[in-house]
């Protein structure tokens, strides 16, 4: 995403991809004017978790493809709307103009087995997930300290003072089943 691109193009790309990320892990609207995030969930989703930050990072390998992703999503959204007789308002990109349910239907089509571009959409989805379930764009300890919505919701434990994790209690500490009768003396199956 080069700096000389027009601001409206930048906005189109960002809001379109945010709407995609929000379809994968839905979140709460950031403001009353937020169109990209549909507001289907009361807590932060993939967008609030940092999906845009992650997919813009060249380490992912998709940062150079974001324009293409957004263009393709909006093309598919126009086609989807046409097929289903859906009206799209012109204030926002076509994919953003879809309702949450309509976005969901479209993403289901794009990622279904047999779709020719399935692997590309699964890849984009994977990074949306990684932003939410592992905060892959930032250090885990820092993400937890900052109240990262995904790690917080999943209740990932916090590290110790040295930044490392340790669990001092880990086991019920008692036999909870009978061993298989043909276990060998090395502890392996016979």
């Amino acid at each position, binding site marked *: 995403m080069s700096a000389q691109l027009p601001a409206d193009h930048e906005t189109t790309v960002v809001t379109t991809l945010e709407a995609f990320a929000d379809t994968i892990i839905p979140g709460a609207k950031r403001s009353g004017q937020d169109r990209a995030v549909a507001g289907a969930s009361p807590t932060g989703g993939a967008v609030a978790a940092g999906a845009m930050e992650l997919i813009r990072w*060249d380490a992912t390998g998709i940062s150079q493809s974001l324009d293409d992703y957004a263009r393709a999503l909006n093309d598919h959204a126009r086609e989807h709307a046409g097929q289903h007789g859906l009206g799209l308002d012109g204030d926002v990109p076509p994919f953003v103009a879809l309702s949450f349910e309509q976005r969901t239907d479209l993403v289901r089509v794009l990622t279904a087995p047999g779709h020719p571009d399935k692997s590309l959409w699964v890849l984009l989805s994977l990074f949306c997930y990684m932003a939410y379930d*592992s905060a892959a764009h930032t250090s885990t300890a820092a993400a937890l300290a900052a109240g990262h919505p995904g790690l917080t919701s999943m209740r990932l434990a916090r590290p110790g003072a040295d930044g490392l994790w*340790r669990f001092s209690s*880990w086991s019920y500490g008692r036999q909870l*089943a009978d061993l298989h009768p043909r276990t060998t003396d090395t*502890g392996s199956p016979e």
Partner: protein
Amino acid sequence: MNSVERTDVLVVGTGFGGAITAYHLAAGGARVVMLERGPWLTADEYDHDFKLGSSYTRIFDFTVGDGMSVLGGNCVGGGSVVYFAAMPRAPRFVFERRGSVNRRMWPSSIDRDTLDPWYDRVAESIAITRQGWEDVSYSGGLWAAACRHAGRTANPVPAAVDTAACTNCNWMMAGCRFDAKQSLLLNYLPAALAHGARIRPLHEVQSIAKSPDGGYRVHYQLVDAEDYRITAGEGSIDAKVVVLAAGAAATPVILQRSAAALGPMPHAVGRYFSGNGERLNTAVLNEERVREVLGLELDPAAFQIGKGPTVANWDRLDGSLPEYTRFSLEQLYFPPGLGTILAMPGGRDPRWFGLSKKEMLSHWQKWLIIFQMIEDDNEGVFGPPPARGNADRLSQQMLGLGTLSYKPTLNTQAAWAMADAECKDILERDGLATVTPWTNDLVGAYTVHPLASCRIGDDPRTSALDDRHELRGHPGIFVTDGSAVPAALTVNPAMTISALAERAVPAIVRAARERGVEVAYGAPAPDGSTSGRRGTAPLVPALGG
């Protein structure tokens, strides 16, 4: 020509198959060079961090294929650094499997009895703990209790973990910060180095050709230490003997690429791949029912303790049952980032994304993941090799697109369905949990134990290697990694891969001697122990030693 480096034995890969053979050859007197495509990290470099670029992504490779994706190690020490260190021996019936070829797939010279002395050698070299119930994680304990409630047995799994040093840190897959996991960095590899072997990290082998002196010339590219998509130079090393142990998702690709220079490869190179029949199920536990039915409390933090498969159910590992109906079920921790996307919510909206999935993620601390290992049908086939390595690398580390195609047969699908039903029967009984299998619709099936893509056997039509691991038609090239294992094992394969590598050494030594290398067979275990050597001594002459 004079500038090409020479060595006696060139070993490709530093995981189990590479480290074990390199140690014995170096200890026996051969000059050994090991080429490893991944980085060389020490314990203090194993980060507790999911950020891209941390050790978690530097030492793993996730290769997406058509119908099968493979997660494997990518570092000095290979899979031993990233695995959960489960080290069971394969059950007796596995060696009698007939599979899709409808004849015994293993060489007639190998069964459990003849492999046990080699298993013993490994057990003497890598400290394996027969875990007690006090070592079993909360999630393993709960799996055991659920098995008992359903009338099943459950076993703590033997593991290469020093339980006294283990802090239960939850980052086992990112490399062990505390040297509790007994990876190859603590036994075979330092012993190989002490005997003069050299390890070159970030050297990705691309192909093998003939050298002018009748040996082999191995071509490699140097991989950038941070961005694996970038290479910075290339080179070659001449060797009299080559040991390929790049992993079952990479070894056949190197051989495919080498066919142009070496001549045709055996038909089975890049065919008969097995994902070890692996598949995952997620159980979301019902806290109240667990308390009422099993009498166990769920500590919110407890289920994210990442000690690997601490408890397994082996009731279906019964040789009297028909093939494709035998499997094991292990409790497994699976960290976020590498598979959470594939878990499926139950109920009316079973989708891998969206609102119900987000709801499922909010219960992540109550996820109990069950790992199935069934008997698959060796249906994986590799397509033409990519430009370099074994995948078109997409991300700077970890993620690439490979050429493996895997279309599960009805046998495999039925076996997975049977194992799914068993998981449900055990864990949904009396409302303990809601159980769903991971979807195969996104990246295909998912294996962490690739096998059989260049396998040993007696039949040249269906095996790339003879029973001494030598590549058919290409004397002096040996394969000793998971690709040599003929078929799915129904248990974690590291112990079997290691035992086979130990067993392969006498023939490799003989091949080196035949080519003028002054090397002897018979090194003790890396720490000097000798009882394993005594146990295998009667078997060595038949193997060429």
